[in-house]
């Protein structure tokens, strides 16, 4: 009890310390200079309608590569962490309900398609590689939940994961070699603003990100689920 009171007190102090962040601070009235540049020149420079996407994929592309790497590390880490040292005997899994099974059978292709749609249209509409990847992964998770016998082919998973990641890096190198810098999307034609095949390499990058994120998330879930069995 004393400990809790003590923690309340220190958290109180902590809150007081952080208070100026809320109190002495007024939100932007104008865009910040950097953002202003992105909004003004972004569409022309990069050809992406979704400005968040142009920030994510190009202006701050290294962040995104890092982000992919983080996810990749997490997936590899979870896989590494939950590795089996010796094969234990598996307890059989309980099957799932009929509703879930039928629902999955119906929804799975739709979810997959939706995911693909999201990352392909990342430069035009809200969403992008990460969001699309997560949607794809959710479909796969649904599949895993619904069927006790469903198994993810890890080889395929790894293949997708590795190749999409490597392709992303390769595109980055192309930007460096063919255009002005690493991860520059402008080595491909910018195309007509607002169409699917525009914004240079952005859709391509987002596709690889989407595949990679999807594969990684599935991998994480798969590893955790495997471990529990």
């Amino acid at each position, binding site marked *: 009890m004393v400990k809790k009171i003590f923690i309340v007190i220190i958290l109180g102090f902590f809150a007081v310390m952080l208070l100026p*962040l809320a109190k002495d601070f007024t939100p932007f009235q104008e865009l910040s200079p950097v953002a202003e540049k992105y909004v003004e020149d972004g569409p022309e420079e990069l050809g992406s309608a979704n400005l968040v996407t142009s920030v994510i994929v190009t202006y701050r592309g290294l962040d995104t590569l890092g982000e992919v790497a983080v996810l990749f590390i997490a997936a590899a880490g979870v896989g590494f962490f939950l590795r089996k040292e010796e094969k234990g005997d598996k307890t059989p899994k309980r099957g799932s309900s009929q509703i879930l099974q039928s629902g999955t059978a119906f929804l799975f292709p739709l979810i997959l398609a939706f995911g693909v749609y999201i990352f392909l249209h990342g430069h035009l509409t809200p969403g992008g590689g990460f969001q699309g990847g997560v949607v794809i992964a959710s479909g796969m998770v649904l599949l895993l939940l619904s069927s006790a016998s469903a198994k993810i082919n890890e080889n395929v998973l790894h293949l997708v994961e590795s190749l999409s990641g490597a392709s992303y890096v390769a595109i980055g190198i192309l930007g460096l070699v063919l255009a002005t810098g690493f991860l520059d999307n402008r080595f491909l034609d910018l195309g007509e603003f607002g169409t699917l095949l525009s914004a240079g390499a952005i859709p391509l990058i987002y596709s690889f990100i989407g595949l990679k994120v999807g594969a990684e998330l599935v991998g994480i879930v798969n590893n955790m689920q495997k471990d529990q069995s």
Partner: protein
Amino acid sequence: MVNPIYIFILALGAGFLLTLFDKAGRKVSLTIFYAVLAAMVAISAQWLIALLGGSETAMIFTAGFKPPFSINLQMGLEEAIFTLAVNMLGLLSGLYLIKKFNATKVNAMVLFLMMIMGINGLIMTRDMFNLFVFMEITSIATFAMIGIDRDIKTLSAGFKYMIASGIASVLFLIGTIYLYRFSGMLHIDSMAVALDMASSQATLLAVFILLMAIVIELKPFPANGWALDVYEAVDSGVVAVIAAGSSAGMLFALYKITPLLNETLLLTVAGIGITTFVASNLMGLMQKNAKRLLGYSSIGQIGLVAGVFAMLVYLGYPINGKMVMLIAGGLFINHFVAKAGLFWLAGILNKENTEDWGALRKKPIYLFAFGAFILALVGLPPFPSFFAKWQMVMIFAKDNQFLVIAFILLGTLLEAVYLFRWLGKILESEVKEKIKVSFAQGLPVIVATLAVLGLGIYSATIVPGAGSLNIFYLPLLLIAALFVLDFLPVWVKNTLVILLMGFYTWQLLPGLEGYRFLFGVIFLVGGVILLIPGYAFKGKRVGFYPFAVMMYTGLAGLLIAENTLQFFTAWELMTLGSYFLIIRGKKAKPHALSYMLFSLGGAYAMLSGLGLFFSVNGNNLDLALLSSITESTSIIYILLVIGFLTKLASMGLHIWLPGAHGEAETDVSPMVSAILLKAGMFGLVVVMSAIQNPMIGNVSINYVLSWLGAITVFGGNLMAIYQEDAKRLLAYSSVGNLGYVLFGLTLMTHLGWLTSITYALNHFLFKALLFLAIGGVVWRVKTKNMYEMGGLIKRMPISFISVLIGIIALSGVPPLSGFAGKWLTYNVLIEKGWVLQGVVLIIGGLIAFLYCFRLIHTIFLGQLKDNHRKVKEAPLPILIPQVIFMFAIMFFSAYPNMVLRPVGDFLIKYFPQGAINWQNGVAFTAFGHWDGLGVLMITGVVFMAVFGWLLLTNRKTQKVGQFNIVYAAERPSRPELTHVGYNFFAHYRKALGVLSKPYAEKFWDGLSELFHSTADFIRKLYTGNGQTYLVHIIVFILVVYAFAMGG
């Protein structure tokens, strides 16, 4: 030139694909893994070379936009150094882990690559948010790598690490987003320009929060319990990367955001860093677990680097200027290499307890490596931290930051305590098992050893005043050669060293003037003579000659030092060499430790003094200017004198000496006693001849010191009479004898200095003689307890004569040379009028008779023990130098004018008044006179006359057996019963009561106990509960906030 971005491209690409390659076989993936690591090393190495060659700093703009509109990376000199270090670390640690990589999933390699890449990113990126991303890459990869072993300890440590790091990243995010809000950009350099710190509390708070995030990752005290757990639990190969590499990245992050910090925050970081340094080294005192101990040391060192860096910036040194590079960079790289090496060694040995590391003794190369790392951490030459620390003290002293200097030196001393204790334990322990070191695990350690040595030598060439260090190059080369040639038999090495040292002496000595010549004779000629006993040793005597040469290098360096850097380097070399000589003794380990600690303590006092001198001397290192300073003379004087007094073993600072000299090997004892102690005197001569009669208020410091000298004579001699151990007796006697030396110097008159030098010369001669003679006896009878000997005059007559001459010279009985000192003492006392000290001093001198007699009686006279009936005379190599010293004493006794006159002649330069008036070998002062030769002749003639008379009246003398005495109406048959030796002066102890108690030892024991119990109390903070650690972090932030932001 390869674009540095390829470091990331390679790592990421390989990382992504490694799983696929692994399908083709582990060999393929391993090959690619190491190839990538090697390529990373190559890229940063290539940049370092180019940048050193004068290339421009490279800026890499991703996506082709200039900052602040895109993320940019930078490859400047600092980045090149750091990335090269980190990538080397990665390659070596990767090699080190090869066995584990082979045995486990390919993910381990991937994670390892990501970890190294993350650190590279931390170093190279110039974007605040990107910094966060790389921070997380590093952290998450580390979290996963920790799982390479999944025992409960590792797991719980890892989890604690994760939640602590989680808090840090949350804080970092908050700070970053607000800084973006206030500055409108994320590019760090532009941000610093755009931010108006004074604008609002919130801006400052945002910077503060960001700073706290980085600080927490740097493991500040006390918010660092999680880090200690990680260091203790995680696999050595991984933890080497965490301790050295991740810390490097975070330090670089701190370096990058420094432009955002105002003075208060800089001071805050300095305070946190230095507090952490002191506190964690304090707590390290109680630590027995090897890796956790290294953890404490790591945390401390990182705190030191951060604190010193912040302090330097606070003081206005340019953030990428030479001073910051030399000091903070030097300290950092030193810690980086040494700590990585030590963690690797910890893994190789795989022993949790520091006391079980003795197995290293079977592997001289790794033992050498261990020693090198330890010395590097403590900051001894020739390692980078030595020069960094030196320069740091100079700089801080220049800016009057003495409190900072004091704390840092205190922390260093604490660190030295446990590190040297550890080293001592290793050298002491009995080795039972052997360790096997694979090539992959051994190579990194060896590379680290070479690196730390190489970096040290490099530091020696860039430190201000480096040019003057060239005097050490040749000797150091010789030392290195001796390490390599250590497989040769002892007589070869002995001859080699004697020849080389003899040649060096031959070259050096004629060029020395005044007192330097005198000390040159003691240091070098004495040194050569005392190497002769080395022939008595069999086998290889591994590790003796390099350190002996190191000690003599230091001593010679003192003689020719012209600036303070040379002097201090020489001083530390001497200390280091002698430490390793002393520690060779079988039971010398604890004493060598206290020798080292006192020496370091003294050296730090001296260093502070030299720093102060540097600052008041217009930032000049020239030692000769010591006499022309006008400010702070008294403080400089006191600090320097304290430094020298520890070497001189004055009362209160003497407790290391009896054990260290008493337990050392046969020929080491005379070296450290007869020669090394004079180094302290040399220092005093240098200082006192420059700064005359400094005062505190209206008290003369020299007057106070004269009392110290007198009390030292009394105390040292008194303790000597109670010793049962012959060598300790001699050691305590040295304490007393050096008290005369101190006393004489403090008088600051011609006669006073002459007295002092006479005592010093005499002490050199008779103490070398006595230690050799007693050493020879101990060599044969295998015990040092005098009461176990007795009657050895019949077995070891030459040793007996040596001791006889030695004690007559020691006690100052005419006609031998010791009397010169006594006679001069009286003269100088009357001249100066300090008779009260004189009384204490002379009483102390009288007590010397007691132990002199005890020494010769208990060993050589009385009853010969049964087990010594077949003892042989000491080996010839030990006897030869004794004969030399005996002749020297006789010469000095007969012709004191030949020695003292030249001494007086150069003393006139300093003290023109009151010189001795010599008339054909008879010395006249204003008060009395002394004819050395005359006394010798008269005594000789009378002695011969009486002897003749006895021979004449004495007819048919027959020698009788040992037990031909009547005792209690019986003839005793057991020598032990009738040999009165044990506790010989019990009545004296009884009579003097309180005066005989070892107060100094009690004081230092108490102090040590205080430190240890404080350490034990503080470290209870680390309860092992991850939640408590979180509370620590929050409270830490609040407290720092209260300090830094004024509530």
